[in-house]
């Protein structure tokens, strides 16, 4: 049996009077890429914030490598479980300053060779280092955001719609990069995507979420032949 990197047990979460996650039970296997699909508003991004300790569940338990998430120091947890958000927010300053941010927060400096290697890995040229991060295009910001998350060398990497603003070639580059990191370091990846082909192509496993519930999960091939009627409709593009 594959060990779970992240496990949800009967997790409920509400905010502003809305029941966002409803009784989520399931596991993200260790060292694998799991894609997370579902219509907008299904609670996928919220689920990420729970994995990273940015929010806490109302009830239920979240386990990271078999240990309750509450047992981890929040700072240690967030370094272990990295997250690259769809918004790819940048702080004021250069690309280097943004890339270095996870280390700056620990009072350290980044090794320039390492910085250049990371930029190269995500498909950005070394000359970008001195550029103003806020002036990068959406796609470039997204790539930098991924590189920045990798600085902490996380064991689990949460990727929220990271290729939605990229062209097809860049999308493939990022997919290859994620697969490469997964293979090389055994990093567990959980990837939210709206692109079902992508989910099928790179996910070893897939979770389908709708309206705050986990409807179906298993090997990604489930998307080809879903059991649940709602998932069948979603796959056909009838649920947006």
């Amino acid at each position, binding site marked *: 049996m594959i060990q779970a990197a992240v496990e949800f047990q009967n997790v409920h979460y509400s905010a502003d009077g809305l029941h966002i996650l409803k009784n989520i039970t399931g596991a993200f296997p260790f060292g694998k890429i799991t894609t997370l699909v579902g219509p907008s508003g299904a609670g996928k991004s919220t689920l990420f914030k729970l994995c990273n300790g940015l929010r806490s569940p109302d009830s239920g338990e979240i386990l990271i490598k078999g240990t309750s998430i509450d047992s981890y120091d*929040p700072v240690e947890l967030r*370094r272990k479980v990295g997250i690259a958000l769809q918004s790819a927010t940048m702080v004021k300053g250069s690309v280097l300053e943004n890339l270095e941010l996870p280390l700056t927060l620990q009072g350290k400096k980044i090794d320039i060779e390492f910085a250049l290697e990371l930029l190269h890995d995500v498909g950005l040229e070394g000359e970008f280092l001195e550029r103003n991060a806020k002036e990068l295009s959406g796609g470039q910001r997204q790539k930098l955001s991924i590189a920045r*998350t990798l600085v902490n060398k996380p064991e689990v990497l949460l990727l929220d719609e990271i290729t939605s603003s990229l062209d097809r070639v860049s999308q493939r580059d990022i997919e290859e990069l994620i697969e490469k990191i997964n293979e090389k370091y055994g990093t567990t990846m959980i990837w939210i995507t709206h692109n079902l082909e992508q989910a099928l192509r790179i996910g070893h496993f897939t979770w389908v979420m709708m309206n705050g519930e986990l409807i179906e999960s298993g090997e990604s091939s489930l998307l080809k032949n879903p059991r649940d009627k709602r998932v069948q409709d979603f796959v056909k593009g009838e649920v947006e």
Partner: protein
Amino acid sequence: MSYLTLSLTLIFVLIPLILSRTLKLGLEKDTIIATVRSIIQLLAVGYVLQYVFETDNIIFILLMILLMIGAATQNARRKGTSIRGITWKLVITFIFIEVLTQSILLGLNIVPPTPQYIIPISGMVIGNSMVLGILFLNRFTAEVENLQDETELILTLGGTPKQAIHTQLITSIKASTIPTIESQKTIGLVQLPGMMSGQIIAGADPVQAVQFQLLILFILLTTAVVTSIMLGYLSYPTLFNQRMQFLKLRS
């Protein structure tokens, strides 16, 4: 000045009233309310001060200062309702700044320990601290609101709450204290400060008046910087919980 002479100064209230009426500015009601309130409040304070000065009792001095802190808190808290426990944070700040300034002034014998000095200086310190508090809270809540994404980004990367709110805190402290520092650069060139003008009009030696004004200016510098920093450092932890999660500002 006699009350008859004082009543003639109401001409300066009539001028804006006539202008407002003529140009349909709609300021008449507020102008009249402001005038009536200032007359009642200041006359009341005048009589209270007269009594406090005559009795020279420490209890009355403390009561006056507490009254000032209460009124300042009541006024400033409206700007910080989105921050949990803002009332007590303001009270602590005002008490601290009052104790700090009076300890230096009285401890080093800079001014004599009489109500004539303690009360007006306390009024200036607490009043200025209140304005600074309002400026700070206005800016800080806006910065926190606008930079929510940056705050969460730093937390996701393993930053502490203090690191996550650092930029907003420093920007707000600077923005609220800069007007005090800037206004001191041109003081005396453009306008004569109120206290100094009052002393000169009352017949005091201008150089003596300037000395006291400088004393007040320097106190206000401390007041401005300490108020902003203290309020900032007391306020930011309430934006996070024990699990270092960013909590929304209260609406």
